């Protein structure tokens, strides 16, 4: 019996991914449906609205490019949040790390302006990653040394980063003019266009490569193993001799570096300069992106595109169907709601959620989440459910 269950579990890695994909798709569909109800209630033409939404997001090469441009900072920052999450850490500080990375990139690009293009871009991005990494390392070290919770410290450091970068720009790097911004970076420091006539740059390629790299790091390296282990059971990590405190610091540093790159690509590919307060909350939306991606690196890609599409399409919808783009923010919220609460979907499909069903994707996910509880209270039941006599 146990053997047979095991046999069926082999392709389960794929089944699990597919199951989650289906669930997420269902959540998105439900969210759009609920959004439609909102539109109808507000007296708008649902068909017209959703046609414009689609058109603005995917209707042409240009709108696809627009979607992707909107998705880029979310991709990097979302990847950062997802990575930390796999290590059991809530990095709500992607916003601040992104600011740190952006300013460092802009300053470096200006300082090394006489360098040739490729090394200059590389150096500027490296500076962004380092600055973001440093900004992530601080809460990691605080947690490791003093136990200060990273949610609190990262949120607080967001304010510090936003205000500090504004101050630094004002004080040292300000370009002439009323706006607190640096001078434009030289043209050869800018990320080249991927498709002529669009704002789509090589940032997309860098992003996809980074997703693959983070996935590989988590799956195949000793460091990634430590990260996932600490995230899934710190107790077991301690017993195995993993230096948990050091891993916490490094996990946050790597996460911060990836978030810093979100700022770098914004500066090198979109803004071409650092502007105080430039981010409309990418670092926060990134938390939602990571959530929808279920903290899987490859999941961040479609999740970021989805949120990018809702933003790009939402603007078109506002322009042509005269529907407030805020409504798309509401739809984004609904997506998160449905993804975060799969129980809602189960209830809708009238499926039992609580019944322990060994080996299926959702059971395992739910268990990981409620690991503590499973270990103490529900432990014996789960065991009973999972297993017949051993020997």
């Amino acid at each position: 019996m146990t053997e047979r269950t095991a046999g069926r579990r082999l392709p389960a890695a794929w089944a699990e991914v597919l199951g989650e994909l289906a669930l997420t798709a269902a959540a998105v569909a439900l969210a759009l449906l609920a959004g439609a109800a909102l539109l109808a209630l507000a007296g708008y033409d649902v068909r017209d609205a959703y046609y414009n939404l689609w058109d603005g997001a995917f209707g042409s090469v240009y709108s696809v490019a627009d979607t992707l441009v909107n998705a880029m900072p979310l991709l990097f920052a979302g990847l950062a949040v997802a990575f930390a999450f796999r290590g059991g850490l809530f990095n709500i500080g992607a916003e601040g790390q992104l600011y740190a990375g952006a300013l460092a990139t802009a300053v470096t690009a200006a300082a090394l302006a006489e360098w040739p293009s490729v090394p200059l871009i590389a150096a500027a991005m490296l500076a962004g990653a380092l600055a973001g990494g440093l900004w992530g390392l601080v809460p990691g070290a605080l947690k490791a040394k003093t136990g200060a919770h990273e949610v609190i410290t990262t949120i607080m450091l967001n304010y510090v980063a936003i205000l500090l970068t504004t101050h630094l720009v004002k004080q040292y790097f300000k370009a002439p003019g009323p706006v607190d911004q640096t001078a434009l970076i030289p043209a050869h420091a800018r990320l080249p266009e991927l498709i002529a006539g669009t704002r789509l740059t090589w940032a997309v390629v860098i992003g996809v490569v980074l997703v693959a790299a983070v996935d590989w790091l988590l799956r195949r390296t000793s460091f990634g193993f430590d990260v996932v282990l600490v995230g899934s059971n710190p107790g077991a990590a301690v017993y195995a001799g993993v230096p948990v405190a050091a891993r916490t610091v490094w996990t946050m540093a790597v996460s911060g570096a990836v978030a810093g790159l979100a700022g770098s690509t914004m500066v090198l590919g979109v803004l071409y300069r650092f502007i105080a307060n430039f981010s409309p909350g990418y670092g926060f939306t990134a938390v939602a992106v990571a959530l929808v991606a279920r903290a899987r690196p490859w999941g961040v890609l479609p999740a970021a595109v989805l949120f990018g599409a809702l933003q790009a399409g939402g603007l078109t919808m506002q322009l042509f169907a005269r529907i407030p783009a805020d409504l798309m923010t509401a739809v984004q919220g609904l997506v998160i709601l449905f993804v975060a609460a799969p129980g809602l979907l189960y209830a809708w499909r009238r499926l039992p959620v609580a019944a322990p069903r060994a080996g299926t994707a959702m059971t395992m996910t739910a268990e990981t989440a409620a690991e503590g509880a499973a270990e103490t209270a529900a432990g014996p039941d789960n065991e009973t459910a999972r297993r017949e006599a051993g020997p």
Partner: protein
Amino acid sequence: MTVSHNDAGRPLPPPAGAAPGPAPTPGGGGADAPPAPAIEMIGIYKRFGPVQASAGAHLRVYPGEIHCLLGENGAGKSTLMKILYGLYAMDAGEIRIRGRTAVIRSPGDAMRAGIGMVHQHFMLVDDFTVAENVIAGMEPRRRGLIDMAAARRLVAEYSRRFGLHVDPGARVEDLSVGQQQRVEILKALIRGAEFLILDEPTAVLTPQEADELFRVMRQLKAEGKTIIFITHKLKETMAVADRVTVLRAGRDAGSMPASQTTPQRLAELMVGRRVLLQVPAPPAQRGPALLQLENVTVKGAGKDLLRSVNLQVRGGEILGIAGVEGNGQLELEEVVAGWRTPDQGRVRIAGRDVAGMGPRRRRRPGCAHIPPGRPRRGPAPALSVEQNVVLGRHWGQPYARLGVLRRPAVRELADAVTSRFDVRGGRGPVGGLSGGNQQKLVVGRELYHNPWVILACQPTRGVDVGAIERIHRELLDMRARGAAVLLISADLDELLALSDRLAVIYEGEIVAEGETGQFTEEMLGLLMAGQRPSGGSGRNAAGRNGTGRDGAGRDGAGPTEATAGD
């Protein structure tokens, strides 16, 4: 007392009344089997997804008895009782209470039928007093207000009548685990329970608290209550049960009066094959001291958590640390493992001072650390068997090169460990394996690389009999290979079965140390409780070991084995 091979070679004749099948004839034993069962569960089936948790189980409980429901983890004990208590709906089967078919859909139905259940995990509000906890949901009222005085009187009365010794005014957070459990029993009694289900009540108790619980159970029985006692411990079964039903793989494997069976037979029924309750061990072949603690002191808030501990474990021997939990065992473990730096004193591994070496560096030369079976700290449940097996060695050759994991080497290791240590349940997430298999996997991971210093902490707690046998055998194998084993356990049977020498820890101090044969269980019990045996046993074993560190004023009553001997 070594192996009991008494049943060797004989087939297993079903003991009296043990015919596995639809209707076990009640009490083939005759006299102690009353005519009509109080609770009857007939052919109970329950399936969770692919797992058949109950597969036609039968249970007959007679009024006024202590009925032990015995079985390994996963045999379906809890499932059966949760069906009886209305927490799970059965797929098929029938429940009869006092001869009448009962429909129990919820715990409310069960309570109305006179069934009460005490769960492993207590459901008490820490901030409330005992009385408030007990009456919550059924408050006695007067003029629309809760009548606390009446509640307290009620609780006091029940407490007295059943010998529960709980103070109605005490706050639950100030109570010991054993007392909290008695509050749970009170809750059930006050709600009119005639039948009391106790779900593995001893899992959370110290030996002394367990004895106290057994006393309470006997008193409840004397008051006419019927008790169903879930356990996987044979000794407890033999100690309190009037009648035993053994469950295996969701079915009843036998039911009989406790007086007509032996632990050996019960173990065989549980596991389905012959089990060695005590693995035979040749006399110790002692080598040099591999693990030494010298004057180790760990300071806590206000008092020392460990005070001048001197211990040494030589190659080829197992040193057992006995003690009631919370007397410094945790600190001892942390100091040896390298998680905590002692405030004074030093730890030597193979003669070398390991101060400043973290857990990872101590492990490298050949130290292993086996975590408790419960709470399960060893495995990471969400990770696969392969990942768990390589855990702790995933940084370097041969399992990783330049920080990149080498899959084939890891897979090979997983094959080797799972086959050598008999880990069953496939290769998926370890959380899907049974508790026993999870622990075997962890033990296998730690012992596969033939360590020569082994720190084992509660290695078999919460683990089933079959896995316990396996783990004990592996530890003895390591000892035979010349490894030094420090075994910290709250299970006296385990300590007595495995240890060559024993040391008793009480409030951070080693209060006695000697060859295992010099201690009796009673002496250990007293020492663990902080008293010194009065020497009535005629043996001259316990007492302080005579290094005279701070033992002035106490008589070193004959420490035969000096701590820092040579």
